[in-house]
Each structure stands twice: as structure tokens, then as C-alpha cells.
């Protein structure tokens, strides 16, 4: 049986206590006994010695050894007496009880010891008290009585031994009693401990059976009622918790139902691009089951997603991409990073936790877009044919008029010359307006293709210098005509870009011709440089500039600077929107800074990262 800690402690205390009692009593009683016995032996010895001395005086003045011998032999039988011997006045031992010889130590002390008591030690015999009594004050001789000290020691140890035995018995009894007493205390304590352990394990229905009226009983009662209280509180909380959980579950189910019934697909990825959550629309969009996507890297849904989530995780802005879905459907994905600061304060460092990607099936929109483009394509073709006839025949008439009619007319007639001038001007108007319709048709076709994403991009490694120079070449006659200075600053050794050469030339031509169109004097400056892994191109003019309220709409369709009714500039109003579409398709940005009346600076960027074609190019196939 295991000893209780309480009993162990008690045991140690008892042992310690008893040890002290043993030692003190033994030392005290031993010492006391020893002294008493020694005193007793001393007086006993002295009495014997005196008795022998006086007897010797009475019997005979001259010591007769035989008589003395007979007398001392009687005394030897008294308890404690070890030896007796008598010396004459000269110190000669005349009779003794030593058998067989007088030990050397006795012979040595005889002369010196003439009265009183002396401790001596005799080899082979032990310790003795040597007591001397003179006979007639030493005139006749001396009587020596040796009291055995060993007997004193033996008696003392016997007493101590019996004391220890008695104390041991009391000790055993005490232990026995202590064991019962301690058990009586510790058992209910153990019960209480067990009970407390049950409470710790939330077993509030447990009971403790301690009926005693002492402190322990009181403690048990208190604990019991405390447990009852806790039990009640727990019950209440449990009930409330159940309610809350139920409500939470309902809310969660409601939210999950909403998310799952969304027409749009929803994907949540963590910061490593691992898919954490999807809704059912996603399964349909990609033809994959939920367990085939959850926990996997987003790359299983295509490389566009990798790019999208990487971009989104690196920024707080909304990132979009067009993606292919199963069954020839197309989707538009919108990704937004999830930031940690929306969560409770328990998060370590604020940062991006992941990204939420929404995917909308835009197949229908694409179809409509495509239909629109097809419609515009057809319409533009149908318009071109009559336009060709009109312009062709007008040109023909003008030609005949100039080549054939004018030479045969009397140019001296002022009225006729005036009419001829008017007619010539009218021809110019018809032809230039015809050209405007032509470019308008081309631009409408162009922008509708760009907007619907049906443009095929011919990406190749090109230098921006080549683009700028080609655009300038195409417009050089206009530059000369206007007499504007052209300033070109291209940073040397610019890296090549991966872009559609013709389309970028189109953008440059647009920007240059705009600058030319709105600038009457001053200069046009073009520069290109490397900035943040992008090529930054600037086209600066000293033209009329853009009013502040129009800067935001300048890249919208059919928005041109100036009062259209009064000061109509030539152009289709589609140059900048087309340029914007082209630049954005290359992953770049286009913007303008302008001061009204002083001039404008158009900027665009083309990123240096290698692009593997455009997201939209698949739609063409």
C-alpha cells in the first residue's frame, strides 16, 4: 500500500522526535547512572577498605599474611570488588587476591597511592577504581580495594538498552497510532481530491460522501455546493452556447448558400496560391470537382490564374484577366487581395493573407461583342463600296474638269473664274470629307475589334527607336508643312520590348498627329527612357492644351478637344481610345498631363516583362 504524503511527513516527524528523545534520555540516564554507580562503588570500596584496615588493627598489630589473606578473600565475594591487597608500611604487598600474579600496573602504583581513590587500568582485566585505606594511619600498612568499573559500564548499558527497548515499543505504538490518525485525516482528503479531479473533468454530477462535522466535512460541503453552482452556470452557458452555435450555423449556412448559389464563380486562395475555398459555380466553370481543387495550387486552373493571383497578392488593387472556361466559354476574373487588418488583433503582422477571385461567365457578352464586331465589319464593307464610287467619280470629275474643261474656258471672264475657284474648293471639301469618312469607318472597325478582343497581336522583339522613327517618317511631310521643330531624345541602349510593331507605330502616329493637329507654333518633343522595368515614352507639344475638365474624358470615344460646333478639328475622335486599347493590351498605361493654352504631354509605358501573347488571342481561333 502506498503511504500517503501526509503519513510520510508524520512518520518523518515521529522518527525525528523519537531520535532526539532516545539520544537525550540515553545520554542523561547513562551519565546519571554512571555517576551514581561510581559514587556507590567508591563508598562501597572505601567502606570495605576501612573495614579491612580496622579489622587488621584489632586482630594483630603485626600483619600476619595468612590472617589477612583469609579476611580479604571473604571481601572478594562482595559485588563489584575485583581485587584486594594489603601492603605493609614499607610498601611490600603482604597478601593479595590476584590470581596467579600481581599485575605490573599494581606494582607500579603502590608507592605513589597512599590514600583516596585512583582510576587505574590493568591490561587484560579492565578498568578499576583503586581505593586505599591506611592501617593506623599508614604505620602498619595500607589496604587497597579494586572496584570493577566494567560492571558500572555494563549496568549502565543494560539500563540504556532496556530504555531503548521500551522507547522502541512506544515508538512502534506511536507509529501505529499515527498511521490510523493520519489515515483518518488523509482518507477524506483523498476523497476530496478525487472529487476535485472529477470537477476538473467537468463531472459536476459527482458526489462526495464526507459526513464529518470537522473542517474537512465543511470543505466537502462547500465544494459540493460550489460544484452545484458551477453546474448550473455551465448548464446556462451550454444552453446559450448551443443557441449561439445554432444561430452561427444558420448564418453560415445562409452565407454558404448565397455563395454557392452565386452565378459568378468564387475562389479564395491563400498567399501561396493554394485554393482554400470555391463555390459550386467554379466546379461547373472548370469541369472539376471540389476535392480536385481544394488544397491544390491555382495553377491547375491555367497559367492566367497564376499570373492573376501573383499580381493580386502583390498589390491591394483589383486585378482582372480573361480566362478560358470549359465548353468553349469565356470568363472574366476579378481578383482582390485579402488584407490581414480586416481580422481581429490576434494576427502577428499585418499583410496580405490571400486573394478572392470572382469569375463571371462572359460568353454571352463575348458573343454579343463578336456579333457587334461582325456587324460593324459588314457595315463598314458595305459603306466602303458606295464610298469608293462616290469618291472615285468625284475625283474623276475633278480630273476631267481640270484637264479638259478649264483649258477650254475663257479665264478672262471674272465670273467664270470665280465659279471655277468655288468648284475646285468644293471638290477639295468633298474629297477630304470622304477621306474622313473612310478613316472613321476604319477606326470604328478597329476600336470595335480592340474592344471585343478579336485582334490578333503579332508580338515580336522590337526597339522603341524603330517605332518612333517609323511613325515620324510617316508624318514627316506634315511636320515640314507645319514648320514645327521635332526633338527626339531616346535613351541609348534601351532594352527591346515584346510588342506588336504595326500597332505601336499606330499609337505613335496617333500621338504625333494629335500633337501636329493642335500645335501651331513651338515644338514637338518625343523622348523614351527606361523607368521601373518599363519603357516610358513621352510626346510633348506646345499646342492648345486640354482644358482641365476634359482631361478625364480625353481617352473616351468621340471626345475631341475644343468646341466641336465652332472649331472642328479634323479627325475621327477615335485615335486616343484606340491607342489606349493598344497600350493596355500590351500591359502598359497611357495618360496625359496638360496645361490649357500651353501644351500637353502624353505618356505611355510598355512593360519589359516577356508576355506570352495576349489573354484574348485564343478567342480569335
Amino acid at each position, binding site marked *: 500500500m502506498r503511504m500517503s504524503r501526509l503519513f510520510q511527513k508524520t512518520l518523518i516527524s515521529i522518527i525525528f522526535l523519537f531520535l532526539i528523545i532516545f539520544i537525550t534520555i540515553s545520554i542523561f540516564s547513562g551519565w546519571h547512572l554512571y555517576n551514581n554507580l561510581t559514587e556507590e562503588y567508591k563508598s562501597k570500596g572505601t567502606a570495605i577498605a576501612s573495614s579491612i584496615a580496622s579489622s587488621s588493627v584489632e586482630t594483630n598489630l603485626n600483619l600476619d599474611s595468612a590472617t589477612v589473606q583469609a579476611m580479604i578473600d571473604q571481601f572478594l565475594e562482595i559485588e563489584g570488588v575485583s581485587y584486594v591487597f594489603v601492603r605493609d608500611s614499607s610498601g611490600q604487598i603482604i597478601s593479595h587476591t590476584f590470581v596467579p600474579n600481581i599485575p605490573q600496573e599494581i606494582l607500579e602504583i603502590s608507592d605513589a597511592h597512599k590514600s583516596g581513590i585512583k582510576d587505574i587500568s590493568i591490561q587484560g582485566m579492565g578498568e578499576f577504581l583503586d581505593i586505599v585505606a591506611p592501617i593506623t594511619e599508614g604505620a602498619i600498612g595500607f589496604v587497597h580495594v579494586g572496584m570493577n568499573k566494567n560492571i558500572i559500564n555494563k549496568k549502565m548499558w543494560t539500563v540504556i538498552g532496556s530504555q531503548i527497548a521500551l522507547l522502541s515499543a512506544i515508538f512502534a505504538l506511536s507509529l501505529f497510532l499515527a498511521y490510523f490518525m493520519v489515515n483518518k485525516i488523509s482518507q477524506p482528503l483523498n476523497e476530496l481530491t478525487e472529487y476535485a479531479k472529477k470537477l476538473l473533468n467537468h463531472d459536476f454530477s459527482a458526489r462526495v460522501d464526507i459526513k464529518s462535522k470537522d473542517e474537512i466535512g465543511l470543505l466537502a460541503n462547500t465544494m459540493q455546493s460550489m460544484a452545484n453552482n458551477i453546474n448550473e452556470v455551465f448548464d446556462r452557458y451550454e444552453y446559450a452556447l448551443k443557441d449561439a452555435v445554432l444561430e452561427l450555423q444558420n448564418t453560415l449556412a445562409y452565407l454558404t448558400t448565397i455563395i454557392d448559389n452565386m452565378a459568378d464563380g468564387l475562389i479564395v486562395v491563400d498567399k501561396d496560391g493554394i485554393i482554400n475555398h470555391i463555390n459550386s459555380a467554379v466546379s461547373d466553370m472548370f469541369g472539376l470537382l471540389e476535392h480536385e481543387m481544394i488544397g491544390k495550387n491555382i495553377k491547375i486552373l491555367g497559367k492566367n490564374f497564376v499570373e492573376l493571383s501573383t499580381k493580386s497578392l502583390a498589390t491591394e488593387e483589383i486585378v482582372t484577366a480573361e480566362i478560358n472556361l470549359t465548353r468553349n466559354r469565356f470568363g472574366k476574373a476579378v481578383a482582390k487581395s485579402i488584407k490581414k487588418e480586416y481580422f481581429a488583433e490576434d494576427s502577428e503582422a499585418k499583410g496580405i493573407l490571400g486573394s478572392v477571385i470572382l469569375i463571371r461567365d462572359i460568353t454571352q457578352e463575348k458573343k454579343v461583342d463578336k456579333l457587334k464586331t461582325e456587324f460593324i465589319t459588314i457595315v463598314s464593307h458595305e459603306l466602303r463600296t458606295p464610298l*469608293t464610287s462616290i469618291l472615285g467619280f468625284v475625283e474623276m470629275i475633278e480630273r476631267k474638269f481640270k484637264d479638259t474643261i478649264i483649258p477650254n474656258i475663257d479665264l478672262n471672264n471674272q465670273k467664270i473664274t470665280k465659279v471655277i475657284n468655288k468648284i475646285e474648293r468644293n471638290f477639295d471639301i468633298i474629297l477630304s470629307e470622304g477621306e474622313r469618312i473612310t478613316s472613321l469607318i476604319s477606326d470604328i472597325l478597329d476600336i470595335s475589334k480592340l474592344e471585343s478582343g478579336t485582334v490578333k497581336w503579332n508580338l515580336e522583339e522590337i526597339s522603341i527607336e524603330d517605332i518612333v522613327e517609323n511613325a515620324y517618317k510617316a508624318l514627316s511631310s506634315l511636320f515640314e508643312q507645319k514648320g514645327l521643330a521635332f526633338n527626339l531624345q531616346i535613351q541609348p541602349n534601351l532594352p527591346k520590348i515584346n510588342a506588336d510593331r504595326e500597332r505601336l507605330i499606330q499609337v505613335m502616329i496617333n500621338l504625333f498627329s494629335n500633337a501636329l493637329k493642335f500645335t501651331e507654333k513651338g515644338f514637338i518633343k518625343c523622348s523614351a527612357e527606361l523607368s521601373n522595368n518599363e519603357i516610358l515614352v513621352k510626346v510633348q507639344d506646345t499646342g492648345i492644351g486640354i482644358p482641365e475638365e476634359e482631361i478625364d474624358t480625353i481617352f473616351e470615344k468621340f471626345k475631341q478637344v475644343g468646341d466641336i460646333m465652332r472649331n472642328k478639328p479634323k479627325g475621327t475622335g477615335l485615335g486616343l481610345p484606340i491607342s489606349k486599347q493598344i497600350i493596355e493590351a500590351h500591359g502598359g498605361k497611357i495618360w496625359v498631363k496638360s496645361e490649357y493654352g500651353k501644351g500637353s504631354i502624353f505618356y505611355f509605358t510598355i512593360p519589359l516583362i516577356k508576355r506570352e501573347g495576349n489573354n484574348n488571342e485564343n478567342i480569335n481561333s
Partner: protein
Amino acid sequence: MKILIVDDEAIIRELMLQIIDEIEDMEIQTLEATDGLEALELIKKEKPDIVFLDIMMPKLNGFEICRIFKNEPPSWDMKIIMLTAKGQDIDIQTAKELGVKWYITKPFKINDIIKLLREIV
């Protein structure tokens, strides 16, 4: 010199005839076809030196005619000039792939035609 004008629009053919008529220093015989099949027959029969070819025509379109002559090159030197309202990159590229060297989009200038004809001849 024989020039064949292939276009389903009579007015365009009329315009082309008038433009060619402007070239007075050359002796030019003009022929007209209103669709692809007729063009094909006329080409085989008349062996024209130059063909102005529209793309969108009934029966057989311009590209198909080009493809025929790409696979079976004519025995004589025949130059095909596309003359079409289809001016998109993809059309120009298709024409290039079919071996067409000249491509004029409608609407065009009279001088474009005259200049080109003088260049070719």
C-alpha cells in the same frame, strides 16, 4: 495589254474602266467579269496580263481564285491586284500568303491605280 476587271459591282467596274481609259499612252484592252466563275473562265480564255480582283463576290471569291492560281500557276505572266473593301490585317495577310503582291483597299485614289499600272508595266 489585257486587263481584266473582276467585281460584282457594276459601278466599280465602270469607275475602273474610266480610270484605265485615262491612260492614253498605252494600248489597253479591258475585260469585265461579274463573279468568280466568270472571271476564272475569262482568265483561262483570254489570258489577261493584269487582273483587278475583288474579294467578296458571288459563286467564287477572290481568295479562292488566288488559291487556284497559286496551286496551278498560269502559263503566262499574270499579275493579280486585289481591289477590295476588306482592308483588315488578316485579309492582307491572307492575300500575301496566296502570293498576291499588290493590294489596294477601297476607297482608293485614281492616281493609286494609274501609278501602280505604270509601275507594273
